[in-house]
């Protein structure tokens, strides 16, 4: 049973924290301070138990079984699909394709839609803050088809520079757009871009990896045509992602992977693909993972995505203030300065300390942050760095975590100043 149904704003973070078994751990004798949710989130007990329960009581392959647990397993998968559709405002469960991760969803769009619709001379427009997952698949199909890749540049504070948007959109058939940067936390003006793209005759494939876990999502309002995200960043398990697409678009697209479950008929002479969503789900789907994702959606819905967002805005504001006050010029925090314009992800640079070294010292203090290029090398180049030290927050973090981060940064500054 969830203990969070009755919670009202603000979130009772202590109670939330208690729902996550890993957060009770100690690292090197100190309570863990987990600030790497942009890489993957921790999992509440209800999610772990849902999967255990699945394996212990109804584990069976789906779709073709008549016996009781096979039917229960099929229903569990389809209930998860329906819950996912509701969670993001999709107009039908048929619009929800379960993938292995967000990356597969983004590739599916590039290969299936791009393969069928892109022609030599067409252009695809990306932003310079995209994750490699929304870049490399477009490079791949572009090389095959002779398609031009263009880039929306960034402003000095890490926002999209839309000055030239209309010119950039000329001849563009698809826009690859991250709804929120996993490096700077920048929230992009999705609706403005989807409107402009549609006006220019282009579609938009949204990388919603960092968005869906943290903000209330309504794909209709965002105006996108496709959106991809991962279960593991939203309190769900590894091994599952979601591709949402407008039904008419998905319907018209050729299948991607071939195999069991995605066919209507196969003979020695050829084959006929199945209808949505089966068409895009070749092979045994991530069934237990879908059950886990469903539990994660229930968990987040129990808190309320509005409350999650408000909590993160408040905490991000507190973190920005704390770090600026305490470290002044010694620290650079990349990205927009206003909490309302960003998510709870911040890339830090400490004067004279490489991010990798910073993370190493922080680990001694049980503070888990991530150094590196965060799979966004083009953005690194814009920021003029090889790597950043990224701290990211979620619903289970609170001010004590920010304080612990500040303490550990202080220790690192001391360690490297001798």
């Amino acid at each position: 049973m969830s203990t969070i149904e009755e919670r009202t704003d603000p979130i009772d973070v202590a109670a939330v924290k208690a729902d996550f078994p890993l957060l009770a751990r100690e690292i090197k004798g100190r309570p863990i301070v987990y600030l790497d949710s942009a890489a993957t989130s921790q999992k509440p007990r209800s999610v772990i138990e849902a999967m255990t329960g699945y394996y212990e009581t109804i584990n069976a392959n789906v779709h073709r079984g008549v016996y009781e647990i096979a039917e229960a397993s099929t229903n569990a998968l389809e209930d998860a699909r329906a819950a996912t559709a509701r969670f993001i405002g999709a107009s039908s469960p048929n619009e929800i394709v379960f993938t292995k991760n967000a990356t597969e969803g983004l590739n599916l769009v590039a290969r299936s839609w791009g393969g069928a619709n892109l022609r030599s001379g067409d252009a695809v427009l990306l932003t310079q803050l995209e994750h490699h997952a929304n870049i490399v698949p477009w490079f791949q199909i572009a090389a095959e088809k002779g398609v031009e890749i263009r880039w929306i540049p960034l402003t000095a504070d890490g926002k999209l520079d839309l000055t030239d948007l209309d010119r950039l959109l000329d001849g563009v058939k698809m826009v690859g757009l991250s709804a929120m940067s996993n490096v700077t936390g920048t929230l992009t003006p999705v609706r403005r871009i989807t409107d402009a793209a549609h006006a220019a005759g282009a579609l938009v494939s949204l990388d919603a990896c960092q968005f869906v876990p943290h903000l209330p999502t309504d794909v209709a309002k965002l105006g996108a045509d496709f959106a991809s995200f991962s279960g593991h960043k939203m309190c769900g398990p590894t091994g599952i992602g979601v591709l949402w697409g407008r039904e008419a678009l998905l319907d018209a697209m050729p299948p991607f992977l071939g195999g069991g479950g995605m066919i209507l008929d196969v003979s020695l002479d050829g084959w006929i693909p199945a209808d949505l969503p089966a068409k895009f789900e070749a092979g045994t789907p991530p069934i237990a993972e879908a059950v886990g994702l469903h539990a994660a959606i229930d968990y987040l819905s129990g808190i309320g995505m509005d409350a999650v967002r408000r909590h993160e805005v408040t905490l991000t504001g507190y973190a920005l203030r704390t770090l600026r006050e305490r470290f002044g010029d010694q620290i650079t925090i990349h990205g927009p300065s206003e909490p309302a314009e960003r998510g709870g992800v911040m890339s830090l640079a400490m004067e004279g300390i490489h991010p990798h070294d910073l993370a190493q010292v922080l680990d001694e203090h049980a503070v888990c942050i991530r150094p590196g290029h965060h799979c966004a090398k083009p953005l690194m180049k814009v920021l003029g760095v090889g790597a950043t030290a990224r701290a990211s927050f979620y619903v289970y973090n609170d001010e004590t975590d920010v304080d612990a981060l500040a303490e550990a940064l202080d220790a690192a500054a001391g360690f490297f100043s001798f």
Partner: protein
Amino acid sequence: MPGLEDLYREIILDHYRNPRNRGELEAPPATRVEGFNPLCGDEIVVYLDVDDDGTIADIRIGGQGCSISQSSASMMSAAVKGKTVREVQALTRAFKGMMSIHESSLDGEADADSEAAEEAAADEVRLGDLEALRGVVKFPVRIKCATLSWNTLAQGLAEAAEAG
């Protein structure tokens, strides 16, 4: 808990063992349509001969599958033969209404189906023997077996209308 006797009613087994209107019609002039249940491999072939005045003059059923899909096809053929296309459409709505499950549906079909049920009620269609298939609803996996022939028929009528 539903028992097997809810599913395998006497009349269903009778249609399974002695299928009505089994066979083929020469197509063209008749319309031939195939339907697959991709999950279990059931295949239904419907041959349709629709008069100029919109009456189903003749119908034949081919294919193979389980007792539910085969008996449903057989009962359907008996029920629609000699009826007008409009009457058949009302019957189809009524049948699919009966087959709708009002719990959480697998693929969003339920809502459409329950609307169909209401429209059918308005049509005041009498299902007759087809009522025997009502028990299938208690075995959701089998619903697609029962509706396969009706979906195939609907497709055939659409194709016949286009061709005509």
